[in-house]
């Protein structure tokens, strides 16, 4: 028990180390830095493909961030920089894909699947509802038989 407690304590103590290596923000121009980081969240790191270059410390990501910073400093607009990156690395570099005919399936596929699914569910429920209403009512005899069957089953189940 004692050693377990110690172990947890050690884990808690080393926890801040996990943050030690996160992407460093240079402090000399906070406004520019903010723009660099904002734009970086839209760009994919091609080495670590499921991260943006804002999240990544890979060398390429650092280089790309430097490029973004340099270009912003030169007065280029955000859109110009994105266009530059797309020209060099392809549309894959954009973290959220563009909406165009080849990506319609990607963007709207899940939603349309949901709509279709709900539609199917609705139709089935309505059919079932209709069937229930159209089902012939039971006569008194049949009611009695059903009741006895049910209670009989229940009896068996208990024994």
């Amino acid at each position: 028990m004692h050693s377990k407690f110690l172990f947890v304590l050690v884990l808690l103590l080393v926890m801040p180390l996990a943050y030690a290596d996160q992407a460093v923000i240079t402090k000399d121009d906070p406004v520019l830095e903010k723009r660099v980081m904002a734009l970086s969240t839209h760009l994919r790191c091609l080495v670590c493909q499921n991260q943006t270059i804002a999240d990544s410390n890979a060398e390429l990501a650092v280089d790309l961030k430097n490029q973004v910073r340099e270009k912003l400093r030169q007065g280029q607009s955000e859109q110009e920089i994105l266009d530059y990156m797309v020209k060099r690395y392809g549309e894959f570099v954009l973290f959220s894909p563009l909406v165009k005919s080849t990506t319609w399936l990607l963007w709207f596929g899940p939603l349309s699947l949901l709509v279709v699914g709900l539609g199917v569910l609705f139709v089935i429920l309505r059919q079932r509802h209709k069937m229930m209403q159209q089902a012939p009512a039971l006569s008194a005899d049949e009611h009695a038989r059903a009741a006895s069957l049910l209670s009989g089953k229940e009896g068996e189940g208990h024994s």
Partner: protein
Amino acid sequence: MNRFLLPLGAFIVLVIFLWIGLTLNPREVPSPLINKVAPTFRLPQLHHSDKTIGPEDLRGKVWLLNVWSSWCVTCRQEHPLLVELGRQNLVPIYGLNYKDNRDDGLALLRSSGDPYVLSAYDREGNVGIDWGVYGVPETFVIDKSGFIRHKFIGALTPELIQNKLIPLIKELNGA
């Protein structure tokens, strides 16, 4: 029977898509620079820092640009193949020494052979970014009018050289 056919069909289509997905290599991002004019640059040479090199100097011939670095393990694996290709005199190979120390780069060429006509020295990697380099080694094929015709991402292999690179160079030289 029919009510199972539709879900089964959908399932089979899904499996086929996933199967194809498994065979794709997500690391190979097709370059948008293919069939575009090669991005220009003017860089000092690796061996002679007082001389420069740029794509304009190579107009009129088909050439390769191999992006390499001494710290890149895969480049070292690829290196003997390039030396061999260089010996065959099929195509001039130019190097882009990417984010390397000049001395380290030169040392590698001294010890393992130098397949390059010459290497450009890209200390900061800015030219690399301009060319859309994201993982060394990469090899670009540039045609006589300065257009990039192909990009090999990752190390070349004997098969790639025989089946793809050499036929492409012959085709570009013939045209």
